[in-house]
């Protein structure tokens, strides 16, 4: 299974320290590193779906749901409207449960592409961890950051959460331990056959995170997929469900700044968020999947459905994303603003370099009265990459007083890349106020020169200017993430000028 290597090096230092203070137990390798080697043959049919469900010991209703999704998926067609171009995917030529065929990993770090090693070093990743990331033979299957690899720490962390009644576990665990919650909310934001990839996910999803925050609870720490134990099963069809009950708050971090090689080319995840009355959810992502080689070959296709339902009045959901990886990205984290006075936010930095393609944006669907949304999108295209911002802002009849502000800025580096903006606006009430601002600019030679005159190298100057361009979004990230994200911006753009 692809995620036998699961690294999260993005963590909240504050949390680390506080948890450390709680219990200073030393590192021991408590993870189950023997991964079940059983696997299903290549291809997809109803039996494979049954196999997956059985392996996970799932209840009948979930198997039924998977099979139903599979039937629907068979009748659907892969969408082609995105501004992306990639060879046809052969869905029968993939493994849907634990691939037995592992590409031979490098024997040692000496055999790893020096460019990749350089990036690891710049991110300050330890040698041991580099081996895991690069898939060196004999390296541990599961790795966590060296400063945070103690099971006891994770346990302490879980205890702390449990005290508050917060549920934070893998999706599979939730299916076993909290079936009522899962059954009640799963698919209530992203319907089963919402789109081609989501439907596929419903049929074959592997694992992911489950979060429930009880009424009135402010989750005491940033929740990160990093802390999740036994996360190796998340796989390419990740499934995440976050439920914030009345007046609760949670900040959730997803992702990893280190570029991760992955043998699975297709990733089709679903993330659903439900915010009940007065609840607030912040969901931050750093996505740096393998973008492929300099010709764009071998990179990850990231076809993700992320959606939040601001179901209760006065609820609020913020999506913040830093997207620098993947060969092809197709992703529109959205908010359904159902509750009156609910708010949705989308802050995005998308960087494409080399041959990457990204068609990304958001949907803000105003259903309730006085709902507000804010979209700040910063797209940076370099190299021969191509990027499209695609955003929908709509208001329905009852959405009196709905307001949206959209600011969509594109920055071009070099003259071989492309940036496109496709805003869709649908207003069905007279009293809505939708504002849209868009700019496209080229990285200014004059500014670059100014920075260099002050002593910055060309690459540092580019990084500084681009970080400046993205500032409004970087500010929305949790502190620790923000610093990493800034470095990531710099690294992603290396070699883009000169």
């Amino acid at each position, binding site marked *: 299974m692809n995620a036998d290597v699961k690294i999260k090096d993005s963590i909240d230092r504050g949390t680390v320290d506080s948890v450390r203070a709680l219990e200073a137990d030393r590192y021991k390798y408590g993870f189950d590193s023997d991964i079940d080697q059983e696997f299903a043959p290549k291809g997809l049919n109803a039996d494979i779906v049954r196999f997956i469900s059985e392996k996970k010991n799932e209840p009948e209703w979930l198997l039924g749901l998977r099979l139903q999704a599979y039937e629907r998926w068979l009748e659907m067609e892969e969408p082609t409207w995105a501004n992306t171009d990639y060879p046809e995917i052969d869905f029968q030529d993939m493994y849907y449960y634990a691939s037995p065929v592992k590409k031979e990993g490098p024997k040692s770090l000496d055999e790893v592409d020096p460019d990749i090693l350089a990036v690891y070093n710049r991110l300050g990743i330890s040698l041991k961890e580099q081996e895991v990331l690069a898939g060196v033979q004999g390296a541990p299957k599961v790795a966590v950051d060296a400063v945070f690899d103690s099971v006891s720490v994770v346990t302490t962390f879980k205890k702390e959460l449990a005290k508050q009644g917060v549920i934070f576990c893998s999706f599979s665990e939730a299916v076993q331990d909290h079936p009522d919650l899962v059954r009640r909310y799963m698919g209530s934001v992203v319907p089963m056959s919402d789109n081609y990839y989501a439907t596929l996910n419903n049929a074959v999803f592997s694992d992911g995170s489950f979060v429930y925050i009880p009424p009135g609870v402010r989750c005491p720490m940033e929740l990160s997929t990093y802390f999740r134990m036994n996360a190796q099963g998340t796989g390419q069809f990740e499934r995440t469900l976050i439920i914030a009950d009345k007046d609760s708050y949670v900040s959730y971090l997803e992702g990893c700044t280190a570029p991760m090689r992955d043998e699975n080319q297709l990733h089709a995840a679903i993330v659903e968020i439900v915010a009940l009355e007065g609840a607030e959810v912040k969901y931050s992502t750093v996505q740096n999947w393998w973008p492929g080689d300099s010709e764009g070959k071998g990179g990850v296709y990231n076809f993700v459905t992320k959606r939040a339902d601001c179901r209760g009045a006065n609820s609020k959901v913020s999506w913040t994303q830093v997207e620098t990886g993947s060969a092809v990205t197709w992703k529109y984290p959205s908010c359904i603003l159902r509750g009156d006075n609910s708010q949705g936010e989308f802050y995005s930095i998308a960087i494409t370099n080399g041959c990457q393609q990204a068609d990304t944006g958001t949907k803000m669907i105003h259903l309730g009265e006085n709902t507000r949304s804010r979209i700040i999108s910063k797209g940076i295209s370099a190299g021969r990459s191509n990027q499209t911002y695609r955003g929908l802002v709509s208001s329905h009849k009852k959405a009196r007083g709905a307001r949206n502000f959209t600011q969509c800025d594109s920055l071009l580096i070099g003259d071989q890349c492309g940036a496109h903006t496709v805003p869709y606006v649908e207003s069905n009430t007279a009293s809505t106020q939708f504002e849209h601002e868009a700019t496209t600019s080229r990285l*200014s*030679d*004059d*500014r670059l*020169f*100014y*920075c*260099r*005159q*002050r*002593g*910055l*190298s*060309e690459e*540092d100057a580019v990084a*500084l*200017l681009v*970080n*400046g*361009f*993205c*500032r*409004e979004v970087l500010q929305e990230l949790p502190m620790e993430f923000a610093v990493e994200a800034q470095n990531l911006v710099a690294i992603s753009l290396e070699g883009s000028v000169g």
Partner: protein
Amino acid sequence: MQAFPKLSEAWEFGINLGKHDETLQSKDEALMLKINNLSVVVNNGEATILSGFNLDVPAGEVHAIMGPNGAGKSTLSYVLTGRDGYDVTEGSVTYRDENLLDMEPEERAVAGLFLSFQYPLEIPGVPTLTFLRTALNAQLRARGQEELSAPDFMKRARSVAKELRIKPDMLKRPLNVGFSGGEKKRMEIFQMLLLEPAFIVMDETDSGLDIDALRVVADGVNALRSPERGMLIITHYQRLLDYIVPNKVHVLAGGKIAVSGDADFARTLEADGYDTYAA
């Protein structure tokens, strides 16, 4: 009002005719910047801006460059700092015994060359202090020196800001974005005082400064005057030179130094204009 002598007579009045290199040849080792027979074209060679340009600035001296609009003063500043689009077709520039023209712009900065821009650039989204700390540490790193910690940097930045009467709030704003013309100029000097460059080129830093600011800026510049430091001050106005008294004043016209003189010469120029020298 004293009429200014014709070019041919200039020498007799004790004014160098731009060929004063020879007189300084003997103390070549003290020269910080030596520009020899420089020709510069812009626009892919379509226009020649400087040709046969000679100038020597010894360490410890402040030289003023004056001259009509479009004479090529800013062009000179850009050639010295290595801006793209200004191509040298002839001649050489030696800075502290190194071939300056071979160096990248940031290498020149690291070697101590600083330009106070005539039109400072806006850097959106980058707080002034962030910009400067990044720049200062980049220079220190490149010189193999220890970088300044955030608190040390802040301390230093605050004291310089106070000296220049810059409000601390301003340092948190993105560099130059929305700054007034005068504020931008003052910020150039702020950067200069923080970076403590070895050789300073100031391109019309006085333009746009109010009288009080002019004095504050001049005090800052004078504080940097030292036997090791060289300065080129491009200006249109005597006023600045009342505060920063130059060792020499040159007139750039017709692509070269048309005439040079001492500090008083600037006063004469202000009275009479450049008509005599325009090529």
